[in-house]
């Protein structure tokens, strides 16, 4: 018990870091599902591309000697580049693979998404090879920088990750709840046809949703690279799956739910690794997902929608 208590604070820190990453991915999933009822399998791979874009920017501005610009500026550049790049990538994916299938049977966009995911993964492998790339974060932010909160050590990088995630989530919440665009998004999510009849440009809203969701995933990719270091072409699959788990647990289509779900999954994984076994941590996460779906399919914060016939 004493061991649990002594390790728990650090595991909480670990879990929150991981959870922030998952939450950002989950947001993209949730938003797209809310609007299109589509499981965007390629979302995880957009996250992966974001990590690589960030790596590209990092390589340009961080030669062996040291950063060419102040570290904060480099990180900001990486985030902006990845977010914009992934935003456009998401829009492109929607245009190519999902828009022609708006009225097709449900299985069609799902298979198309699967195909898109395979395409992305292997395109990256073809052009950038299967080598792991490592973010040399320690050249931007020294490893030892951080604060000690009791038995837990909160490094600066983690603060950065959690902080950026919070900023992005707050920004998104503001966008969705306080702006006209956000109102349009909520309307389209509620009832696409009615929103169209009320004069909302549904296509534009969908494109913007994809842009924002993918941008968040791209940002998450860069943050992952910064804190965990290693990126490779298949990292999107697992992260995407966990992100989806988070979205489901929080209540799919529900934005605060996605954030909550992400943090919960991160904490769950950290605690499972720490106190049960890292061998089974993935298994535990998926078992939790399955149990949730069986017991409470609408998630923690989701609303029971009446099914229209």
């Amino acid at each position, binding site marked *: 018990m004493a061991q649990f208590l002594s390790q728990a604070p650090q595991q909480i820190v670990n879990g929150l870091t991981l959870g922030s990453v998952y939450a950002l991915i989950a947001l993209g999933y949730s938003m797209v*599902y809310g609007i299109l*009822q589509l*499981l965007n399998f390629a979302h995880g791979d957009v996250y992966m591309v974001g990590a690589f874009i960030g790596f590209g920017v990092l390589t340009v501005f961080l030669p062996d000697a040291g950063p060419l610009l102040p570290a904060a500026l480099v990180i900001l550049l990486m985030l902006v580049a990845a977010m914009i790049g992934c935003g456009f990538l998401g829009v*492109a994916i929607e*245009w*190519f*693979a999902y828009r*022609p*299938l708006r*009225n*097709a*049977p*449900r*299985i*069609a*966009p*799902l*298979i*198309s998404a*699967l*195909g*898109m*995911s*395979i*395409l*992305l*993964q*292997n*395109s990256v*492998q*073809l*052009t950038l090879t299967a080598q792991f790339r490592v973010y040399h974060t320690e050249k931007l932010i020294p490893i030892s920088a951080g604060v000690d909160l009791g038995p837990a050590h909160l490094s600066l990088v983690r603060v950065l990750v959690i902080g950026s995630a919070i900023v992005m989530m707050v920004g998104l919440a503001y966008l969705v709840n306080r702006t006209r665009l956000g109102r349009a998004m909520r309307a389209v999510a509620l009832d696409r046809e009615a929103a169209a009849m009320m004069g909302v440009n549904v296509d534009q809203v969908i494109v913007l949703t994809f842009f924002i969701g993918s941008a968040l995933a791209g940002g998450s990719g860069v943050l992952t690279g910064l804190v965990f270091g290693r990126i490779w072409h298949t990292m999107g*699959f697992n992260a995407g*799956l966990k992100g*989806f*788990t988070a979205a*489901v647990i929080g209540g799919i289509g529900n934005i605060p739910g996605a954030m909550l779900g992400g943090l919960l999954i991160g904490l769950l994984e950290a605690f499972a690794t720490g106190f049960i076994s890292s*061998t*089974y941590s*993935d*298994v535990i996460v*998926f*078992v939790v*997902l*399955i149990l949730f*779906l*069986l017991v409470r*399919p609408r998630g923690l914060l989701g609303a029971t929608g009446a099914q229209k*016939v």
Partner: protein
Amino acid sequence: MNPPEALPEKFGTDEWVAQVDARRAGGGWIGKLGARWGALPISWRFLGLLLVGAIIPLLIHSDYVLRVIGTAWLFATLAVGLNVVVGYAGLLDLGFIAFYGLGAYTYALLSSGHFNVHLPSWLALLIVAGVGMAFGLLLGSPSLRLLGDYLAIVTLGFGLVFVQLGLNLDRLNVPWSNTPLNITGGSNGIINLDPLHFFGFSLSTVANYYYALLVWLAIVLLVIYRLNQSHFGRAWRAMREDPLAAEAMGMPTRRLKLFSFATGAAVAGVTGAIFAAWQQSVFPNNFDTNSLINLYAMVVLGGVGSLPGVSLGAGILTVVPELLRSPELSRVIFYMGLALALVFLIRPRRNGLAVLVGVVGLGLILRLAVQAVAPGLVSPPTIEVAAVSISSGFERASQSFGVLVQRWILLPKDPNTAGNLAYVLLVPALLAWARMKPSRWRTLLLVPLLYLLSFVWETRLSAEPAITRLLLIGTLLVILMIFRPQGLLGARRVEIA
């Protein structure tokens, strides 16, 4: 729209229905051939194909070819099993590969030195079928409550959990024993399985297993076909098209769903057992997500819901990647395929031929231009034609073809960078082209597009066959869903929202 051709008189057929049938039949000699084939009684067709399958080992003695075709039978059986769940019942099961793996592992535990249990094959297979059914029911129970996408994720989760358990259940700490329990052999798998033996005869050679798999495929096809023709099939179709209406009409949808899961799982389980006996070993990575994607690609390509379709899809996606293993052969197939597609798929025919000539001409012009201006950029052919002693005539022919192509295309000194850039240009160009409306521009733009494609092929894709194969599968899935969601032999479905 083609005017309806003269059809055999169908008594009482409405004219509009007759027109639809004619349109479905497709034009040209392929359509006619298909119509003649379809007119034969199904038992004739079935027996005919079975006979062809049975004769092959007598004609071809290469172990390798028999192994490839045997694998095609294996995956065809799996695809038929998956078809029951996805095609007939309309339930998206992304963990289907776990049933396959479960069957394989159950057989491995019952017929090997692992726990020193050596059951007679017929008993082992029976138990495997039973275990498969049980797990099918288990996995199917969430489907009663969950809608399409959620079910997909839950089953995907199951599939992943299965692989993880397979990898990790080799050192299970149990309270009643000091040494950890080794159930699945972990990443080392379970090896030295008993081969299948029936009536004293032990299956050992590739040809043996080829026939075993063919027989099993035939049995499964028969059973599933009869099931589909029966009231079960009708009920499944009704449930797939509109579950609410089906339930309102009094159909026991819960039982139907469970039954479809159980059937699919049992088929997959026994197939897994045969696979394990054939490979004489099982490893957790035999059943990972890649295999699942492959299986789904087969089903989708062939046509969800169509028995001959999924079998055909399985055949294509097993044989073609094998053909693509050798860079030279895959090059020949690639260019021949392109040329044939141009000639056959573009109407009027002269346009297709014109595009072909255009691409060749564009290549020659570009090459001559660059060679005149900056000869240092271009590299001479890098393929060599092998000597007579170590290659067959066909190999040398394909290598010579490769040399020819490398003289035609603009082969850069550093193929990697140029190829990667071209690839990044190619993918959006290809997808954008696919979304264009048919017009003169579209045909014209095909010329530079095909040249770019050949360039990328020569510089990057032919060098990485495994990645190319996956890229092709991904592109295939996307393009299929957009243009032909019913696959090759499926029937077009309209979902009323």
